Each structure stands twice: as structure tokens, then as C-alpha cells.
């Protein structure tokens, strides 16, 4: 069929367009030249070792992982009770709660970063690390509301009611019945808030500074002064992190479910 040919061509070209740039990064990370070149002349792993000589990148990676982890954990801690109350607590005007809880998604990331910089660092003199945790928390919180909310909606409320009738307290019912049933949604919410925080650039730029280095800022600083395969190498490391995250998402919720 004629239309299938057209579709095949557009589809193939588009997929190549998406894949090729990433493949070039991988190839250039093994080049022996002192700047990024293609085709590469020799093959070396040295640029990966060179990352280890960049204390900013190493400490940046550590703090980025730590701060994203803390922020996502806070998101769950604050988000799960709120979602439970909204969907199972029988409280009114849940639409208003939802709007407030999802409000960070309606704000540009640059504005979130700038407003927190003004509100927390300049006005309240909060330390940078705490402000950054807050910023990352805001990026992840809507995922908790959406994903855990969806998980709770899919769970049959009768299961919990059965537990109450059998003499379970509301609290015990929550921990014994509700939590185990929505644990994959919770895991997904955690992974999504984590990767969104970890990858966030504008919020990080506003809320980190000298003495408090994050991975994105250290890479951007390095890029300003160098154009060598170290950047390709660290990019490959970041792609490996993405791969790991995708495997986790696939494990907890199945990648196909994302598109239903």
C-alpha cells in the first residue's frame, strides 16, 4: 500500500533522527584525540578514567543522587497521606486540593528555581541544600499525586472495608491492606520524581553555588572551558543511569502501561 511506504519512510527516518545523536556521543567518548572528533582515530577508555580526576563531577554526582533521593522520599512522605485522604477520606473539594498539589507542573522550571531562590535563599536565608531539596520536592510531588492517586483509584475499596469489619484499625488497615496494594504505584512515583529531580537543570542552577556542586552544574562548568571526550564519557554514564531507571520502571509497572 502506498500510505504504508510513506509511513515507513517517515517512521524510519524519525527513529534514526532520535537514535543517531546518542550513538555519536557514545562513539566520540572512546576517541583518542584531545578534542571531540568523528570519525575517531584510536580507541581508549581514558576519558572515563578522566572523569575520576574531576572532583567536582564526582562530588556533584554524589550530591545529585543524595538530594534527589531525599527530595523524592519527602514527596512520598507528604504525598501519600494527602492522596489517601483525598481519594479515601471522603473530604470535599478534592479538585481544589488537586489543583494546589499539581500547581508546580503549571510553572516553568526557571520560575520555580527563581522564586525559590528569592523566597527561601534571599528572604528566609535558608541554606542552599535545603532549598534545593525543596525545589526537587516540587518537581517530584505532582508525580506522587498523579501516580499514587491512580494506583489508589484502581484498588477495590472493599478490600480495606473488609479489613475494618474484621477488626482492623484504620491505621493498621492502611499499612496491611492499602500500602501493599499500591506499592508498584509508589515505586513508580518515586522513580519518576527521582529522575526528574536528578535531571533538572534550571532549578539546580538557581539553587546551587560555590561550595555546593551538583552534577549538572559541574558538567556545564566543565563544558564552558573544555571540548574534550570527557563530556561524552560523562554523557554515556548519564545514559547508563537512564537505562537503569528504565529497567526499574519496567520492573515495577511495565513500560507499556505508560502509554495506555
Amino acid at each position, binding site marked *: *500500500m*502506498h*500510505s504504508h511506504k510513506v509511513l515507513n519512510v*517517515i*517512521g524510519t527516518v*524519525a527513529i534514526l533522527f*532520535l*537514535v543517531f*545523536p*546518542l550513538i*555519536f556521543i557514545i562513539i*566520540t567518548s572512546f576517541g583518542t584525540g584531545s*578534542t*571531540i572528533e568523528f570519525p575517531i582515530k584510536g580507541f581508549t577508555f581514558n576519558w572515563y578514567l578522566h572523569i575520576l580526576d574531576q572532583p567536582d563531577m564526582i562530588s556533584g554526582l554524589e550530591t545529585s543522587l543524595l538530594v534527589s533521593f531525599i527530595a523524592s522520599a519527602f514527596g512520598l*512522605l*507528604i*504525598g501519600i*497521606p*494527602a492522596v*489517601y*485522604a*483525598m481519594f479515601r*477520606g*471522603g*473530604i470535599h473539594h478534592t479538585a481544589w486540593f488537586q489543583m*494546589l498539589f499539581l*500547581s*508546580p507542573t*503549571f*510553572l*516553568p*522550571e*526557571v*520560575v*520555580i528555581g*527563581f*522564586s*525559590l531562590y*528569592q*523566597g*527561601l535563599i534571599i*528572604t528566609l536565608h535558608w541554606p542552599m541544600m535545603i532549598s534545593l531539596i525543596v525545589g526537587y*520536592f*516540587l518537581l517530584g510531588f505532582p508525580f506522587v499525586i498523579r501516580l499514587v492517586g491512580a494506583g489508589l483509584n484502581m484498588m477495590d475499596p472493599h478490600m480495606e472495608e473488609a479489613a475494618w469489619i474484621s477488626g482492623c484499625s484504620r491505621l493498621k488497615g492502611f499499612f496491611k491492606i492499602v500500602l501493599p496494594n499500591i506499592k508498584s504505584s509508589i515505586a513508580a512515583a518515586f522513580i519518576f520524581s527521582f*529522575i526528574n529531580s536528578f*535531571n533538572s*537543570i*534550571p532549578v539546580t*542552577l*538557581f539553587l546551587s553555588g560555590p561550595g555546593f556542586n551538583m552534577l*549538572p552544574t559541574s558538567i556545564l562548568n566543565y*563544558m564552558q572551558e573544555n571540548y574534550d571526550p570527557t563530556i*561524552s564519557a560523562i*554523557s554515556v554514564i*548519564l*545514559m547508563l543511569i*537512564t537505562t537503569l531507571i528504565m529497567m526499574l520502571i519496567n520492573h515495577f509497572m511495565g*513500560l507499556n502501561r*505508560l*502509554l495506555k
Partner: protein
Amino acid sequence: MKKRMILLTFPGILALLLFVVFPMVQIIIPTLSGQGSFGSLYLNFLKDTYNQRIILRTLWISLLTTIIVLIIGVPLSLWIARMHHRIKKILILVILFPMLTNQIVLNFAWIILLGKNGIINHVLLSIHLISRPLSLLYNNTSIVIGSVYLFIPIMVVSLLGSLSHLNIEVEEAATVLGAHPSTTFFKIILPQISTDILTGVIWVFSWTMTSYTTPQLLGGNDDLVMSTLIYQQAMTVQNWTLASVISIVLIIISVGCILIIRSLIKLLDRRVAHA
């Protein structure tokens, strides 16, 4: 019971009041009074031709990106949706991968490709199509290319769900009745996914408009967009009031654009329905 339940939402409400509402109010208040009358800061900002150029550039880049993403994304989604199950799964992985990857990586790829010593120039030089390297990087075009690259997956993700559920027999019926494939595409497939296209368009447009990393890394120093202007005013110039003004203008323009896109599509939809 209900009262105790509402307590569970308090940490969340408190957090968002303190971390979203308070900082936003904090940046809005100084922009309202400023020197002179109410709103004068906004008028001054909008009157300046330099700022007008930045606003128009931002809108133009977003519009162009959205149109290109639409042209590539819709057929791509349809193609993936019609694939055999196993290949489809691999293609979905390819689509999701950039969405979960740090934007520095995605933009850096285009620095490698488009740079003066980049791969594209290298290839063009070696086949003697050009005699001097072209400056492909650090202009509006490179921002659009980078943004298209970033946002094609968003469009695909918003379309793939409903495209996979389309009833293929309707298209077969159209073909049997003698419809040209393009007629089938525009009259049968598109109307069925118009709401998802609208969602995709709104996402791509507003995210391009507010995205910071791509214009920062792929745009030139003279090609600021609104988000990079906010950062420059806030952190380099330290003119916080102006940065606040631009932030508010950015939010208002992007919300306004979303409303316009929505009503435009509704208008089109009605015409399709009446046709």
C-alpha cells in the same frame, strides 16, 4: 473521622503554600508597585524593542518547533502503533529513552553534530559540498532542532495510547469504498485522535516556550529567549525585579497561548464535525 482525614493533607498544603504560593507572591509584589504607577514596570518591559524581539523569538521558536514535531510526530506515532508487538516494544524504548535522559546529554549531542568541527560539517567538507565549515550552531535554527529532538517523544507518548486503540476496520472500510490513503489519514484517523493531538501540541508548545537548557546550550549569546533572559537578569545582572516581571510575563503568555491553541482547535474540530 473526616476531620482527622483532612489533617493528612495538611503537610502537603503547608508545603505548597510555603514553597509555591509564598515564593510566587514574594516575586509578584515588587513588580506591581515599582517606581511609578501600577503596572508601569510591565509596560516598560513590553515597550522595549529588545525585549519585544526576545518575546517574538520565543514565540516563533515554540511555534516552529510545535509544527515540526507535529509533522514528524503524528506519522511516527501511527507507524509505531501499527508495528508488530515485539518491534513496537523496542520502538517505545527508543521513544522513552530521551525523555528520561538528562537534557545536557541530548543538547550536547547536537553540539557535537552541528559544531564548526562537528560531524555534519566534517561530512559536508569531505564530500566537497562546502569549502568552509558552516556555522550551524548558536542560532535560532539550532535551538529549533534541539527542541524538536527533545519534544518528538512527548508528542508520540501523547498519541500512541489512543492510536493503538483505533479500530482499523474503519480505515479498511474507507479504502474499500475507494478513499485515497491521504484521505483516510486526514478524514478518518486524524479526527479520531484530535483531542490527543491537542494535548500533545499544548505540551510541546508550552515546554518549548519555557525550556531553559536548549536555548542556553544551543542558542547564541545574542539569541536569548525569555527563560534565558530570566536567568541572566536574576543571576548575572541581579536585577531581581526585572527577572520577576519577565517570569510573570512568561507565565501569562504561555497560558494565553494554550488558551488560544485550545479554542483554535475547537473551532477546527467543529468545522470537521459540520463538514
